[in-house]
């Protein structure tokens, strides 16, 4: 079976992992247009080449990022999301006021 290297658990069978979609920037839900939001939710680059994706190691519930070639299927690199997401993201200022 194809193997994937989980940054947390080491090499595991690919069947233990769940594909979670392209890594992309979330627009601010309170200020973006419906079209921008639809683009974020439904549209994809669906590129041929090396892509950056979210993957889940299901047994341990651990989300990480993989760089994978979509023609050869070769997994180039897997790493913890903290490599990209290294500061706190405020999704919405409006909701915070409502909650307060």
């Amino acid at each position, binding site marked *: 079976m194809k193997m994937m290297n989980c940054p947390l658990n080491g090499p595991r069978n*690919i069947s233990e992992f769940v*594909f979670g979609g392209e890594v992309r920037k979330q627009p601010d839900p309170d200020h973006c247009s*419906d079209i921008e939001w*639809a683009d974020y939710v439904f*549209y*994809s680059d669906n*590129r041929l080449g090396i892509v950056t994706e979210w993957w889940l190691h299901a047994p341990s519930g651990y989300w990480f990022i993989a760089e994978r070639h979509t023609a050869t299927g070769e997994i180039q690199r897997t790493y913890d999301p903290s490599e990209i997401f290294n500061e706190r993201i405020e999704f919405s200022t409006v909701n915070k006021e409502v909650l307060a």
Partner: protein
Amino acid sequence: MPFALLKFGINKNFPFERHADLQAPKALGSSYDVVIIGGGGHGVAAAYYLAKYHGITNVAVLEKGYLGGGNTGRNTAVIRSNYLTPEGVHFYTESVKLFTQLANEFDFNIMYSQRGQLTLAYTDAAVRAFRQRVEVNKHFGGHTELIGPTEIAELIPCLNMHPGQLSVQAGLWHKDGATARHDAVAWGYAKGATQRGVELHQLTEATDFIIKNGKVSGVITNRGTVHCGCVVQAVAGFSSLLAAKAGFRMPIVSYPLQAMVTLPVKPFLGPMVSSPAHHCYVQQTGRGEIVIGGGSDPYPLYSTRSTLDLKESLLASTLEIFPFMANFRLMRQWAGITDMTPDYSPVMGLSPVENYYLDAGWGTWGFKATPICGKTMAQLVASGGKVPELIAPFSMDRFEVFRQVNEMGATAASH
């Protein structure tokens, strides 16, 4: 030997049809009214209806490989209309109607065989969903009914009625369910289109576009530049890649879909059987092979490689419902690249680029739509962009207004 046969042997005019089904290739022209990209069933069907109903014959179909070598030649040829949404059922019912007449229309045998399709329910929830599908189907003139375990056992005596801890509770019996020879459908359309003047250019890949002020006026290919009045994109699994060349994104992710057949055995299975709970469906071809198919691969890829994992899980499911198949031998296995949409419905109609029409998002279910899709795409093109009512619900911008046509439950593992 009967004399009647001998007569043909001495007749100088025999065989009567001397010309080949497809004309010899011509040089690629410098300009066409319509350029259709993708020589699968959908592309050649659109060309055929453009020529036949609209008198538009200055048309080139560009195919990077060979005619029908994409998903058209790789699918398991389930033809049915028992979907869930009124929009979907209406559309697919029209397609099934066209399919029944195709062989006569082409004068070319597509081996259309209406053997019915049975989908199995093991839970109350599945039975409820089936009831809804029965009513929607009847409303649009389809022949679909709910049948119980006794009738199912009569219809398919070799079916395991109690796989694992499950028990078959009911079946969605779709009498219109059919199959046909997929390559013959592509060939029939290509023959009819080229005989009317359409040019089919194989080994011709669209690599870029000439787009000015948001309007397409030409296609760049590996064999030179072609100017055109409009473009129809019908490239299935490669939809996003071509759209990217035209400068827009699509609500599509490309996943491989695998299938396989066994060695031929004596006929024992009339209807096509689908078990959504097992993610698999099984049917016997006219040659006796058992075709086995399931859902797409678990992650996106532009490669038609096959995996052992999928064979194992698909065969395990198949043996649950037909245990005696355990000693059958697999003969062939293959894959195609399927263009999956979030709501399991196609994307048809206008695109963000003017004069650039979309026929995409056919995922695992588009073979059955070939005739109606070709016909409505031809209407769209011939009218200069007036979207036919039948396909209006499938416009790409439905996602922007959150008006999806959800066919997931009626599609997954049933095709």
